[in-house]
């Protein structure tokens, strides 16, 4: 099949529906948000249309820089953990029998059906002192007495990795299934151990996929606001938590919008940088 460039207006017609949906449900709300971020906040009231930079000014402080830094760091760590677990797991999954693959996929997809609230409460129970997993360790004699593992940073990270891992695997799976098995076979014939073949042949062949997965999980994790609240202490609250506070509890829409716009800009910047770095390395090889 030859791919032809669309010539007439009618050729573009199939694009109309997605284009309309995208503008109605993404472009317009996002534009409104940008507009609101410049509005004047009326303390003790609502907001009035204006063009002021107050909301951005308030955000530019050491305090919010810390919160933003933490949110980015958390999202990067979630992405790295997910990929570090997801790539070897998916690689082994693709080497399994068809039946086993289906069973694993169904199990993973069922995790996706859980809401963030359920995941948060389940982990807070699992990590609690009174009913948590440390009680099991006490029962088999590995620990002296049960301790609380939540709230804390490890708890937040664990739950967020748990939540993002199915997505990671679903994104990695097609690329790994299509990976030519003769590549590893060739490496093995030439004397590489399975581990060495994985690191020197499989991983480099998947570089683009891994980069794309890292970016996807990073963005996914950046929007999380329930898990840090349920499983973290206040210093583990992400910028998304503070945006929610402003929008819902303080009814300070302009400031919430300004923070959200800032978060989007920083995210786009980081993604661009990552892609740029990836391309540069590719060119260097």
């Amino acid at each position, binding site marked *: 099949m030859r791919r032809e460039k669309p010539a007439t207006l009618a050729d573009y017609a199939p694009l109309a529906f997605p284009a309309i949906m995208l503008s109605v449900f993404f472009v317009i709300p996002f534009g409104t948000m940008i507009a609101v971020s410049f509005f004047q906040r009326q303390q003790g009231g609502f907001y009035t249309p204006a063009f002021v930079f107050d909301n951005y000014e308030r955000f530019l402080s050491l305090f919010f820089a810390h919160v933003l830094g933490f949110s980015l760091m958390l999202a990067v760590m979630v992405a790295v953990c997910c990929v570090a677990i997801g790539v070897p797991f998916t690689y082994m999954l693709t080497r399994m029998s068809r039946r086993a693959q289906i069973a694993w996929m169904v199990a993973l997809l069922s995790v996706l059906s859980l809401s963030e609230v359920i995941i948060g409460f389940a982990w807070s129970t699992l990590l*609690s002192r*009174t009913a948590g997993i440390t009680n099991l360790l006490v029962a088999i004699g590995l620990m002296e007495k049960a301790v*609380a593992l939540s*709230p804390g940073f490890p708890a937040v990270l664990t739950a967020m990795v748990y939540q993002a891992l199915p997505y990671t695997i679903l994104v990695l799976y097609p690329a790994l299934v299509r990976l030519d098995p003769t590549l590893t076979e060739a490496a093995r014939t030439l004397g590489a151990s399975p581990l060495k073949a994985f690191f020197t042949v499989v991983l480099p062949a998947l570089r683009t996929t891994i980069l794309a997965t890292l970016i996807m999980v990073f963005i996914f994790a950046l929007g999380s606001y329930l898990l840090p*609240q349920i499983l973290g202490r206040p210093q583990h609250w992400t910028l998304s938590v503070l945006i929610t506070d402003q929008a819902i509890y303080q009814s*300070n829409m302009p400031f919430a919008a300004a923070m959200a716009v800032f978060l989007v800009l920083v995210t786009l910047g980081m993604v661009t940088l990552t892609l740029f770095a990836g391309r540069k390395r590719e060119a260097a090889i």
Partner: protein
Amino acid sequence: MRKTFNPSISRRTVLGGTAAAIGVLAMPSILRAQDRSLKVGVYGGYFKDSFDKNIFPDFTAASGIAVESIAEPTGEAWLVQLEQAAKAGVAPADVSMMSQVAMLKGQSTDLWAPIDTAKIKNYDNLLERFVNKYPDGRVAGIGAVAWYITLVTNTDTYPEAPDSWAALWDPANADKLGLLALVSNSFLLEVTAKTYMGGTNALDTEEGLNKAFEKLAEVKPNVRLWYRDEAQFEQALKSGEIPMGQYYHDVTGLAAADGHPVRSTFPKEGGIQDSGCWALSRASEKVEEAHVFIDYMSQPEIQSTLSRKVGTAPTLKRELLDLTPEEFASVSSDIEPIIPRYDLYQTKSDWLNQKWTELIVG
């Protein structure tokens, strides 16, 4: 803002509630075949269900006015909707149950129609704090429901009930407390002022507020959980995971009655009393019916029914009510309550919010 008695509610359901409320607005009103009717906004969930079951049918029978109850979203979304509708001359609800901060914000745009106190027979019997007035003395709202936030403990961990809010500061309680996460719903500045600074008037000046923040910072090492979601703390309190904190008196009482090892104590400085008002939108044309409704709701018998059936604290003086001491104790206390400084959350909200967030996050 209180997501009352509905422990499973999440922010998503609040948003869903907003959507539902908008849906209600868009639908033509379906009324029963009475000539007179009134649209009443009530917090969605537990409150609306209880009012629909225990209160509104009797009111219609007594007054001949049909009530169409509307589920309000919590938070300030309802205030925004009322405000925008009033600008267009429409009232999505005639009478609404509004939080105190929302009352003050509505006052700033004259949203509330003044209430003619001569038509409220029990006006003089209302506790003064349940009458919400404009600065010029017009009455903007009359107390609808009230509830207490008290000092709660797990009885297994604390065989003896604490008797003062000072227990929150006790170094012995390190990493044991669950407190509300927002300055505007925890009212801990008021608690600090009442416990250590001689009363909430100490918060009049910025200096006083800074002092309260400083004192409050000492509580931080004791706090295990700053919660927004009520279910999260209630669960942890019952299991003893987090054995002390601030929580709603009525819900804690219900949990204790169910056999959970929890208790609610009115500290000697008083429980925190929060409340909602009945307020009439200036766009409403049902001024007469609204007064009949508010008058009906302010009767001693109805206030007693509310305490028994809905679990709210009465807005009238205690001696007028036929509640038994046990019934009264399950919803209220004779100890003078700590009344939140709602005015501060209107005039200084951004400053307070910023200081507070920096205090607990930093």
